[in-house]
Every structure is written in structure tokens, then in C-alpha cells.
């Protein structure tokens, strides 16, 4: 192992940029352990541009769910030892509640104006109120927040370089939301998963206004409540703008229920306004149906949707599917209108009994398909 001149040590002679690439692909603790490998390796880990701390994904490590361990003995030492710009800072916390230490970390990071990617997930406890200093990070391109309170100061003008925005259970007022959305023309990926208690104030703008401000949007993910908010007022119209760039739609978290008319119609609204849509991913909920108006039945033959052509739709994934007529109709519509469809994956809700499952399958087999290659997988 220590013989010189025999097996060569190639990895240490790689250029630092490549060594950084290698080091950022492993948990940050492993990356910092490489500092004792040899003289060569002592300082590489201190200059890695990405710091990724994660006790959310992967197997549960109980030693890390303590704030003292996670923040004090992992995050703090590494932040103190780190040199050079931090371009990406990811902190996915599970079992650690919001605390002032996180504020200190954010304060430290906010002095580093080059930060491009900031992700903070706090998966338990109260929401974390973001410091005003945080809003100075004008270079941010990726922002992911979970369980935080987003209250920018008055001088905040939005993050103009933002490419990806992910808000999961983030409480935000309508006017602040408007401020962000109005000033990130480059946004490609927008996720808003929230409930009534998160979206504060009077949410009076709708999908049209939203999409007008986000011309480059390619991926949209929303949960049921924001969809209802945005769909107010436009629900029965066709969107005047065609969402030509939208490639992927996800309806996620806190379930969409086609038993609720507004959900079904808003999904249809979005789907039909996106001629280039390629992927649709939906998570449904099983609620007893409200009285659904006749217009939403039998979608395929309906005049409003006869023009629809989903030429690029390739993959549709629906989970928690039930045998409601509206859901079945939706699938029928998709199958009939997507000539390039490759895969439809349906996970049937566990509460549907075996007869229901058989009914779903037997009906689905009969639906005419525009795409000869479409594969329907029902689990």
C-alpha cells in the first residue's frame, strides 16, 4: 500500500476540478474523510463547491436526528473548515426542528453571494422563519424550501436568476408570491405544494397571470389547493395562451380528487393547453364524489375537447386511482388523444376491492388508443 513506484496512484494526480466532481457525489462526511488519505488529499475537500447534508433520504440514522449531532457536529465543523465559494448548499433535515442554528447557517451562507442552489427541508416541527438576510442571495438559481415561512422584506425584488422553485408547505402571502413570480422570467421548474394554511392573503390571480409571467416554464407541480386557487375564474375557458414549453405536469401531494369538479376541470385545462406536454404524473384521492355536472362526463366526445391533440405525450402515471367514472373518462381521453403515448402506469388505490379492479381493467382494455405502442400497466 505504501510502496512507491509499484502501483501508481492515479487518482491523486487528477486535476482538482475532477476531484471535486468526485467528492460532491458522496455524502459530505465521506468527502471530508478523504482529507486524511494523503498529503495530496488534505485540502481538496475544503474547496468542494457543493455541501449536501441529508438525513432525510436513505436509511434512518438515529444519531443524526438529534439537532446537536446533525448541526453541531456535522454541519458546523464542515462549514467552518470549508474554503472557497459554496455554490450549492443542501440541507435536508428529518427529525430536527427549526432552530436558531439554522438561522446562523443561513446568515453565514448569505454572506457568500455566489450561492446558486439553496435547499432547506425541515420535515418536522414548526415552520422556520427565514431571515431577511436570506433574501439577499440574488444569484440563486435553485431554491427549495420545505416547512418555512417566506416573509421577504419590503426591498425584496425577487430572485431574478431563478430556474427552479420548490415550495413545499411554505407559508407565503399572496403579495410576496406575486413579487417572486413577477421577477423570475427564467423559471423552468415550479413546484407549489401547499394547503389553505400556507397560502395567506387573498389569492386573486389565476393561471393566466401565472403563465404569463413564466414563459419558459417546463415543469409544473401543484397540489390540489393551489390549483383551486389559480383555477378560479378560468375554469371553463380555454387558456388564451398556449403553454408551448410545458413538458411535464405533476399533480401531487394532498391529493387531487376527480370527484371534485374543479380538480378535474383544472387538470384538463392545463393538459389541454399544453400541446407539447410529455409527462403527466398524478396522485389522486379517493373521496366520495360530489355531483358532477353532465358537461364533464364523456370527455372524449365532448365538444370542448375534440380539438385536443397531445402529440408529445409519452408517459402518464396515476397513483391512487379509483374506478370513478370521471377518472376512467380521463384515461379514456388520454388514450384517445395521444399518438405518441408509450406508457401508462396506473396504481390502483388499495381501498378498491378486487371487483372494482377487474372492472377497471376490463373497461380500460376496450378504450380506443391512438398510439399502437401504448403500454398500460396497472398495479
Amino acid at each position, binding site marked *: 500500500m505504501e510502496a512507491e513506484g509499484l502501483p501508481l496512484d492515479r487518482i491523486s494526480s*487528477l486535476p482538482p476540478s475532477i476531484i471535486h466532481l*468526485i467528492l460532491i457525489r458522496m455524502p459530505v462526511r465521506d468527502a471530508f474523510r478523504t482529507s*486524511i488519505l*494523503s498529503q495530496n488529499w488534505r485540502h481538496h475537500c475544503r474547496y468542494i463547491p457543493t455541501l449536501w447534508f441529508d438525513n432525510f433520504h436513505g436509511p434512518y440514522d438515529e*444519531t443524526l436526528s438529534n439537532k446537536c449531532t446533525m448541526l453541531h457536529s456535522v454541519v458546523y465543523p464542515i462549514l467552518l473548515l470549508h474554503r472557497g465559494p459554496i455554490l450549492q448548499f443542501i440541507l435536508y433535515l428529518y427529525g430536527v426542528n427549526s432552530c436558531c442554528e439554522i438561522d446562523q447557517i443561513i446568515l453565514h451562507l448569505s454572506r457568500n453571494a455566489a450561492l446558486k442552489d439553496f435547499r432547506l427541508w425541515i420535515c418536522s416541527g414548526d415552520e422556520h422563519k427565514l431571515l431577511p438576510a436570506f433574501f439577499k442571495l440574488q444569484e440563486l438559481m435553485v431554491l427549495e424550501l420545505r416547512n418555512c415561512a417566506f416573509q421577504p422584506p419590503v426591498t425584496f425584488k425577487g430572485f431574478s436568476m431563478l430556474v427552479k422553485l420548490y415550495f413545499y408547505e411554505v407559508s407565503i402571502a399572496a403579495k410576496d408570491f406575486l413579487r417572486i413570480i413577477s421577477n423570475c422570467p427564467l423559471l423552468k421548474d415550479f413546484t407549489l405544494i401547499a394547503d389553505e394554511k400556507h397560502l395567506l392573503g387573498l389569492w386573486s390571480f389565476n393561471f393566466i397571470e401565472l403563465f404569463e409571467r413564466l414563459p419558459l416554464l417546463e415543469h409544473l407541480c401543484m397540489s390540489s389547493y393551489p390549483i383551486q386557487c389559480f383555477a378560479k375564474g378560468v375554469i371553463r375557458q380555454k387558456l388564451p395562451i398556449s403553454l408551448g414549453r410545458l413538458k411535464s405536469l405533476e399533480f401531487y401531494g394532498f391529493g387531487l380528487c376527480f370527484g371534485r369538479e374543479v380538480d378535474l376541470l383544472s387538470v384538463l385545462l392545463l393538459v389541454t393547453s399544453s400541446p407539447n406536454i410529455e409527462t403527466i404524473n398524478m396522485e389522486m384521492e379517493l373521496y366520495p364524489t360530489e355531483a358532477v355536472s353532465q358537461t364533464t362526463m364523456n370527455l372524449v366526445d365532448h365538444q370542448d375537447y375534440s380539438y385536443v391533440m397531445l402529440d408529445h405525450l409519452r408517459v402518464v402515471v396515476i397513483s391512487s386511482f379509483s374506478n370513478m367514472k370521471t377518472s376512467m373518462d380521463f384515461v379514456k381521453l388520454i388514450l384517445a388523444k395521444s399518438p405518441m403515448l408509450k406508457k401508462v402506469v396506473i396504481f390502483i388505490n388499495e381501498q378498491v376491492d378486487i371487483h372494482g379492479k377487474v372492472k377497471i381493467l376490463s373497461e380500460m382494455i376496450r378504450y380506443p388508443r391512438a398510439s399502437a405502442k401504448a403500454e398500460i400497466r396497472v398495479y
Partner: protein
Amino acid sequence: MSEPDVIKPEMMKSYIWLQTADGSIQQVEQEVAIFCPFICHEIHAGMGSSKTYPISLPARVNPVTLSLILDYCRFHQVPGRSNKERKSFDEKFIRMDTNRLCELTSAADSLQLKPLVDLTSRALARMIEGKTPEEIRETFHIPDDLTEEEKLEPLKNITDDPRIRLLNRLYARKRKELKEKEKLKNVEVEAEHVDDRSVDELLSFINGENGDTKEVKTAKNKKKNRRRKDQQKNAPPVCTNSNTSSSPSNGTKESNGISSVSRDDRVKGHCLPNISELLKLQDSEDDRFALDDEFDDCDIGDGIDPEIKEQIDREVEDFARRLNSDWPERVQELLSLGQERRPSLYSINGNGCSTKRSNASGLEKHEK
């Protein structure tokens, strides 16, 4: 390719010429080579169209890696392949020895072939992740050229285990005292005495958390005792015959250590190198991490249950065994001394070695 039946199909493909750093020139289909941005730029600049003007590839690309890269390009430049096919090709592709993989990463980087750089660096990261430094050094033939001091620097004090954190701090404090002692008096004798205490306390402290409140108190008392002793600068003579007694006890320790290994390899893997390196020398920088409130009970209450404490005991014993192979002799004595003397600390006032008979009972307590 369907139209010309007169002209041979090979003539339809255009070829370009590439020259590696060693001077050898080869001919490659243009559509394949163009997959590399570097080559693509060179072609646009007018190079490579003939043997006399080959594209000179960067120095880091040797013929072997070039052929690998071209294999990669040849596969991936075909547009019709599914993601699954590409993935399985990639997985088979990176199966090569580590040196070749490093060369490949380097070469791909110089040719600006980002997908291949990503693939290879991910593979290398997988080889490093989760391994102990020794294993990594072995895999990549990295020379172990850090001095012991350097290994102890806080740079590597980022461990994932609160137990290690505690151990680190304890050792750091002991080392600090060791240093002070060294400056003043006879090195060997003094140092051993103090270090002895540290391991004792360490073990008893951890052991004390096994639910035995008496032991907890004794741990704290031992600490106070130690402080007083330090001030008095009592030093028992060195017991050279403790070496002989340490071997049988080491034997039992070993078997316990091994059993703990099999039970929790991952923890061991993470614990061991840190401890061994830490114990090698003192480093004042480590004091930064040696907080004064380190003996707070709440620290130990970080969700460490008795079972794990026992494991820690065994692992510490196992550390001693492992350290025996690395350490200078005197430290080796220290550890074995310390563990033997653990239960009889109080009586040590100047009579160090005589109490080592009690080692058996002490170890048995450990092994429960």
C-alpha cells in the same frame, strides 16, 4: 447508405485522423468522434481531415483510453437507443480497474466529454464513499504520507458518531495534558500516568452509562480525583511486566472485538481509523473541539443505549488491539494498563502496577 450500391459503404462515412500524445495516429469515423466536443471544435477549425493534419489530442489521452472513449461515443451517438440500454451499457462500461478509470476520467475531461466524466466520477465516488481511509488507500494505491499530527487535525474530525465525538474530546484533553507534562518532567513516566487515567475514565465513563448509576458517580469522582492527582503530580513507576499480562487479556479482548465487528461492521469501519489516528499524537488544535462541558450527562444521553455502550467497550478494546500494531510501545502499554486498572482506580495512588490483578473482574464487567 442505401443509394450507392456501386461505391463501397465505407466510402460514405467520413473519417478523421486523431493523434495521441505518443505520436500514434489513428482513423476514426467522423460521426463517432464528433461526439467529443473537443474533437468537434477541432474539426470545425479545419483539422483532422487527412493523415498529415491529424487532430492532436490532449496529453492526457493515451491510445488505450482513446479506444475506450471511442467505444463509449460509438454506442451513445446512436440516437435510437432507449435509456435502459444506455444505462446498462454504462454500467458494464465502467467495470475496469481503478487506475484505468482515473485515466479515463482525466481523458474524458480533457476532451470535454461531460457525460463520460459524470459517469466515471460517479463510479469513483462510489468506490470512496463509505470506506475507511485504509481501504481507500488500498483501492487507489495512495501513499500514506501524512504525519500523525496531520492526521489529527480537526480537518478530519467530522465523524458521524457521537460516541466518537466524545472519545475524540476525551483524548484531546488528555493529549493536552500530556503535552504539558512533557514539557515539565520525565516524559515516559508522567505521560503514561496521565494517559492511563484518560482511558480508564473513558471506559468507565462509557461503561457507567450502562445503567449503573454507581459507576457514573465513580466516573465523575475519578475525574475529580484525577485533577487532584495531576496537581500533586503523582506518578507511579512504569510497569514493564504489564506487557505480559496484557497479552492474555488482549486475547479475550480480541475475540470480543471480533464479535463486535461482525455485529456492526459499519460502525467499526467508521470508528476505528479515527480513534487510532487520534491516539497517535497530541495536537493542540484538537482542543478547539474539547469542550469543557464534555462530561455532561446529557451529552451521553444522545440516544445511546446500554447495548451500544457495551459495543463501544468492546470496540475500544479492539482499538487497543489494532493500535498495538501501529503505536509506539509506550502507548500500547498505556492502553492495556488502563483497561486493567479500570475498576481499581482509587487504589492507584502511587501503587500502579500492584492492582493489575483486578483486571479479570474489570474485563468481565466489560464483556457482559
